[in-house]
């Protein structure tokens, strides 16, 4: 009786193993699951959240965690789990938005700078390099000082931090790709320079930047939280992880759950993106230093 079930189990095991190898290891698979679950929860927050994120309940001020409120309640009696789920929407939107913006601006700059070289390269990259001459968080704070606080400003500020990273990565990949024989081949075939740049060089130069973008998304969530923790990001009453962590400090010894759960949620999110990023890096560079 056992033989057939074993035989049936074996191909499934190898399927899982193949999947693990495909995504770059067990850790990466765990990361993918974490990110997928969190994104789903964020998108479906209004449907899956057990309570109203803004609902104040005077009977449940600093209420302990229980079945109805697994993460407890905050100083206004609001459900912490619900607020974490809604805060994810803000965190993920800001993080994905900032990385997308940095990519949309940085990738073309890196592409043109690397492909054209010479004075074009200098003209495009020198100002970008200047952005690297400031500590990242200081740059974000300086930009917010100019425009004023807010979630959208935080998004743009994080994008400005990431812009030089993306542009540099794309540029160095372009330098390698444009020296490949198939690029000469396309040129010999009579392809125009813009067509070579867009059809042959660009698609083959995005890999490293895309991998980095995964890791950067995780850190963007962290930076957004740090900025709103300082009062420079999203403003109350918006549920944001940074604001929740700042408010939780006031009741730290009375009701540690108000502080612990949003922080854990934040750490797990960043962990998920880091694991996926490390896995992708291993896939691109199997001998690499991405351990």
């Amino acid at each position: 009786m056992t033989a057939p079930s074993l035989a049936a189990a074996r191909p499934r095991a190898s399927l899982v193993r193949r999947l693990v190898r495909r995504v770059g290891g067990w850790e990466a698979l765990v990361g993918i699951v974490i990110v997928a679950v969190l994104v789903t929860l964020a998108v479906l927050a209004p449907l899956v959240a057990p309570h109203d994120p803004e609902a104040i309940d005077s009977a449940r001020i600093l209420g302990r965690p229980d079945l109805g409120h697994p993460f407890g309640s905050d100083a206004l009696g609001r459900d912490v789990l619900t607020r974490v789920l809604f805060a994810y929407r803000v965190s993920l939107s800001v993080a994905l938005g900032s990385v997308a913006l940095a990519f949309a601006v940085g990738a073309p700059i890196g592409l043109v700078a690397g492909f054209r070289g010479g004075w074009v390269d200098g003209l495009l990259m020198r100002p970008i390099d200047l952005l690297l001459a400031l500590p990242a968080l200081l740059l974000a704070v300086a930009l917010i000082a100019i425009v004023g606080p807010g979630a959208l400003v935080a998004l743009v500020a994080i994008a400005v931090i990431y812009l030089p990273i993306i542009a540099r990565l794309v540029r160095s990949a372009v330098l390698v790709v444009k020296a490949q024989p198939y690029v000469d081949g396309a040129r010999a075939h009579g392809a125009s320079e813009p067509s070579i740049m867009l059809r042959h060089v660009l698609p083959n130069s995005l890999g490293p930047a895309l991998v980095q973008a995964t890791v950067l998304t995780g850190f963007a969530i962290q930076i957004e939280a740090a900025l709103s923790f300082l009062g420079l990001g999203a403003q109350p009453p918006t549920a944001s992880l940074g604001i929740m962590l700042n408010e939780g400090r006031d009741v730290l010894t009375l009701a540690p759950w108000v502080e612990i759960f949003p922080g854990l949620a934040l750490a797990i999110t960043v962990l998920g993106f880091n694991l996926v990023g490390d896995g992708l890096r291993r896939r691109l560079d199997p001998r690499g230093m991405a351990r």
Partner: protein
Amino acid sequence: MSPRFGYLVRRLLLTIPVLLAMSVFVFLMIRLVPGDPVRTMLGFRATDENVATIRAALGLDRPLADQYLAWLGALLHGDLGQDFVSKAPLTTLLSQRLPVTLELTILAMAVALIVGLPLGVLAATRGRWTGRLTSGFVVAAISVPDFWLGIMLVLLFAGTFHLLPPSGYKPLVGDPVANLRYMILPVLTLASGEAAYILRTTRGAMDSTLGSPFILFLRAKGLSEREITFRHALRNAAVPIVTVVGIQFGVLLGGAIVVESLFALPGVGRLIVTAVNQRNYPVVQAGVLVVAALFILVNLLTDLVYGVLDPRLAEGGET
């Protein structure tokens, strides 16, 4: 001129345009504020007369190039301007705040090196389980946001066991013991992530050095593993480690903004955040300028250390 000296001079000269560009950025900050920065600072109840007075005091009523040259000239004489709220000279204010930030970041980097370097070497030379444990530490320490870690440390060491003060500051000069008691939690908070980066870089650099042919040769010569690891491999792995220490110093300066606010340390970071919230632009400008200049200086030092560690880099730059 020896190649090393040439490298030094060239690297010093390269710093000047970077500093100038930085000064332009910081100068333009207040001018880029949408609408009228003076009205934003003073609030909407300010009279036109008040606005005009402050605008003249900040020199905002003069042509832009004039403003910049005057500002830069004052800067070169060590005059950072005036706090717009307290009227105190900013050079004095910054010179009081900067030592706190420096102490915090230098101690944090020292702790990160003390933890990260040996663990990185261990991870590269010991078995699989050491590697796995350190990998776990790296990914956890990088993922946990520093300010939350700080709050958890406060909950544990100040809230539960009452071993350390939750926040505040005592000057180093006068009472070094009390100063250290106040610095322990902020330093640990700031150091955890850095330790992870240093560990990861050390392991990577050691891995690739230990795999190179000259190590095989030293083994064949009969040198002990200890001697190979510490005298030969670590020295050759130093350049990437120094790079990361240099880059991460900037991350520490950024992290200090959050950690100082969290632990109520009177450093430059907290000064900047308070000033941003009060829209006290002259203070923001001075703070950003000082931290940026510090970071540029650290980058310069890092490059100079390269020249010492690996003379080929200095000489290679000559061609």
